[in-house]
């Protein structure tokens, strides 16, 4: 959580002319500053974590799973390393309870309801904003756990060229090149990249082969802003490639994938009291899987049109009202009883400040083609107890229609009689920003009615997730230290069983320091045991990663990353292997 407070640094001198006219002085302005707001939601009232491109490059993460692993409130699981099914459980909720947005457009598979996180190339990412808790009236009713928004690289005033190439264990290699900048009223960014690896043997029980992966991607962004009040932008993120998987039933399984997000946004602020934004987008998730029997091909498309209007009153009052339309479409060799489903949403959000207290109230009404009308909403407040300590609280509800897989997937999994999932969450948090650093803690409880789990898919009557999370950032003798902690008790209340795949305790420590040309550091992730489908526990583990970056000059840098220093064997998904001790070295160029 970050403070949204306006802090001011002053550097002042005034030129003045008295009536008796004295010499004019140097003309230093009063500089008044405010913190840039997160784009997904205002940090004043929500639990937000921001991860930047620099953070990603420094720690040397090759996949989004590595970037997000251990982050406050986030649990990541993978069915093996490199391009294998990867899931995010935000605050102990299900993997399809987190809305993933790429440049404002929802990215998810229409069949599984979850995004193909494993294929999102980290080289295309400029910034990630993670919002924990159900405060998603603006983005959809289904964010029971939270919202993660990825912003791809955009053109800035300065024209830059960046390029990197790297090699490492498992015959892994990557190459990325991109350019961005601006020309007149146009901003642009264009990046292409490739990552490939021979991979590891992912499944312990069969197919003792290496499961490789390759991903080719490009990202393109263009923005035209003839004046400050109007702009139109277009963005594309495209990734395609091949990933090999293991299966207990067939040999030499592999699948080809294409993932794409295309969007265009029109923003207009005709007056100082009003701004309007229209966004049109399409997400594509295509999978061509083949093994010893006939190939399975599934293409899902997601269409989105949203129109948001913001009305500004007085100094701090903002009322937002909007509409959004979403449609999922499936075309598959698997037989789904329903191939298309739409959802219309209407929302209003009120943001205000009374004295020192920030307040938020939002209501959203959805009409789902299949499951009818539902109203959700959230309330939040933030109050500064002292100039550095702040208390926040919120209550939110969410609603999620069962996914098409949960309803119709053949072979005994799908259950057409499922009811939608509904949740209520309550959260209270404290955060502080002091001279020596910052910290935040928050405690929450989420009750989910009809959570969908098990095989075949079943509604669990009552589920409750109680959680506590904390974050502590400081500098100790020049070592930047960041500690993140997540404690969870995710429980099926009727059977008192722990929900699958969530560790009850998770800790992450990141320590790094700059020594002139050197930047060295480590991150350590510790997670407690977790339950999986077969009723057994996967053991808890601690993984230590090291990184060291060396600047050759202002443009060139060499980065080295040693992952899993102690060669720990661990699993985040039952019977699936993870990376052993591995090394990766990158050389990077960037115009500064």
């Amino acid at each position: 959580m970050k403070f949204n407070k306006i802090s001011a640094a002053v550097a002042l001198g005034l030129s003045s002319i008295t009536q008796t006219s004295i010499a004019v002085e140097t003309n230093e302005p009063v500089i008044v500053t405010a913190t840039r707001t997160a784009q997904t939601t205002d940090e004043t009232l929500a639990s937000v974590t921001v991860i930047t491109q620099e953070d990603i490059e420094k720690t040397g993460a090759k996949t989004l799973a590595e970037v997000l692993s251990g982050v406050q409130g986030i649990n990541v699981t993978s069915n093996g390393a490199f391009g294998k099914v990867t899931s995010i459980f935000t605050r102990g909720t299900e993997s399809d309870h987190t809305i993933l947005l790429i440049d404002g457009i929802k990215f998810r598979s229409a069949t599984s309801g979850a995004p193909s996180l494993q294929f999102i190339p980290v080289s295309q990412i400029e910034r990630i904003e993670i919002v924990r808790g159900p405060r998603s009236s603006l983005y959809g009713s289904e964010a029971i756990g939270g919202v993660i928004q990825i912003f791809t690289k955009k053109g800035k005033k300065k024209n830059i060229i960046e390029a990197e190439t790297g090699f490492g264990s498992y015959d892994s290699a990557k190459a990325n090149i991109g350019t961005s900048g601006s020309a007149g009223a146009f901003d642009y960014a264009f990046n292409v990249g490739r990552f490939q690896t021979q991979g590891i043997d992912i499944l312990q029980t069969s197919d003792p082969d290496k499961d490789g992966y390759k991903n080719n991607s490009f990202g393109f962004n263009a923005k035209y802003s003839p004046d400050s009040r109007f702009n139109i932008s277009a963005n594309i993120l495209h990734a395609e490639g091949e990933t090999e998987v293991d299966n207990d039933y067939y040999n030499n399984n592999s699948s080809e994938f294409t993932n794409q997000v295309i969007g265009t946004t029109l923003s207009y602020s005709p007056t100082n009291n009003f701004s309007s934004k229209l966004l049109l987008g399409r997400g594509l998730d295509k999978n061509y899987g083949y093994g010893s029997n006939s190939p399975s091909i599934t293409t899902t498309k997601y269409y989105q049109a949203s129109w948001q209007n913001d009305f500004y009153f007085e100094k701090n009052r903002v009322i937002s009202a909007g509409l959004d339309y979403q449609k999922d479409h499936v075309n598959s060799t698997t037989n789904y009883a329903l191939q298309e489903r739409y959802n219309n949403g209407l929302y209003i959000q009120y943001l205000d400040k009374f004295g020192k207290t920030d307040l938020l109230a939002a209501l959203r009404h959805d009409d789902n083609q299949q499951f009818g009308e539902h109203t959700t909403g959230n309330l939040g407040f933030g109050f500064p107890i002292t100039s550095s300590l702040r208390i926040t609280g919120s209550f939110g509800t969410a609603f999620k229609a069962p996914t098409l897989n949960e309803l119709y997937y053949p072979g005994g999994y799908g259950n057409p009689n499922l009811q939608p999932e509904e949740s209520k969450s309550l959260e209270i948090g404290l955060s502080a920003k002091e001279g020596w650093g910052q910290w935040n803690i928050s405690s929450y409880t989420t009750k989910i009615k009809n959570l969908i789990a098990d095989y075949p898919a079943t509604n669990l009557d009552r589920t409750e997730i109680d959680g506590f999370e904390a974050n502590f950032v400081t500098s100790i003798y020049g070592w930047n230290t960041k500690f993140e902690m997540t404690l969870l008790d995710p429980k099926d209340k009727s059977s008192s069983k722990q929900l699958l795949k969530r560790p009850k305790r998770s800790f992450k420590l990141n320590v790094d320091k700059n020594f002139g040309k050197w930047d060295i550091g480590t991150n350590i992730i510790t997670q407690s045991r977790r339950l999986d489908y077969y009723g057994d526990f996967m053991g808890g583990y601690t993984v230590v990663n090291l990184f060291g970056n060396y600047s050759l000059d202002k443009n060139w840098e060499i980065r080295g990353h040693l992952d899993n220093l102690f060669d720990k064997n661990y699993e985040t998904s039952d019977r699936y292997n993870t990376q052993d001790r591995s090394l990766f070295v990158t050389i990077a160029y960037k115009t500064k």
Partner: protein
Amino acid sequence: MTTLREKPVFFIFLILSLVFHSFFLWQKETTHYDVTDGEDIISVRLEDNTLQILAKKQPEEPVIPLVKNPQPSETKPVQKISKNTQPVVKEEIKTVSKEITKVTQTKIPAPAMEESVASKEQIQRGIKNLFQANFYYPSLARRNNWQGKLEISLRISPDGKLTNIQVTKTSGYSILDDAAIDTLKTANILPLAKEWLNGNHFDMVLPIEYRLVDS
């Protein structure tokens, strides 16, 4: 009852559009500047170090304090606190200002120029602190990443009132220009100026920079 499903989406768009226009027109008509009453502002001013500096009467540039969190809304609690302490502080001003008057009158018999120099610096600091304590960064500008430098000219009348407040150089964003003007109009008065000005007007140009920073 008609559901969203039955009615086309554009129908709702139309309704919202109407709502927007009515909001918009209403807003235009009701745009005005709030003028806070002078007494509250006086108490706010007493929180900062102007008094101290005045008493010391140092001609050189003072160390400029890093003012944190000067959100406009914070003035309210500050007002409450200072209201309690008001009697004490008011006495202080009176005594200090009397001393000053004495000093200027006795020690420097005809110091028209020197006196103006001292006053000028005090007024600079006063306006600086006044702006810092009252400014706000408009939400629309923050969301759109709008930043810029502007200049405002104003006249401080002998009783300390801020008048003739005008933008002489725009930041390029009228919302920032307006916020700066609004800040000074809301502040309305530079309380101690009365003592410093000695019956004179004071015309000045105040350069202001609105800047967004990563936290």
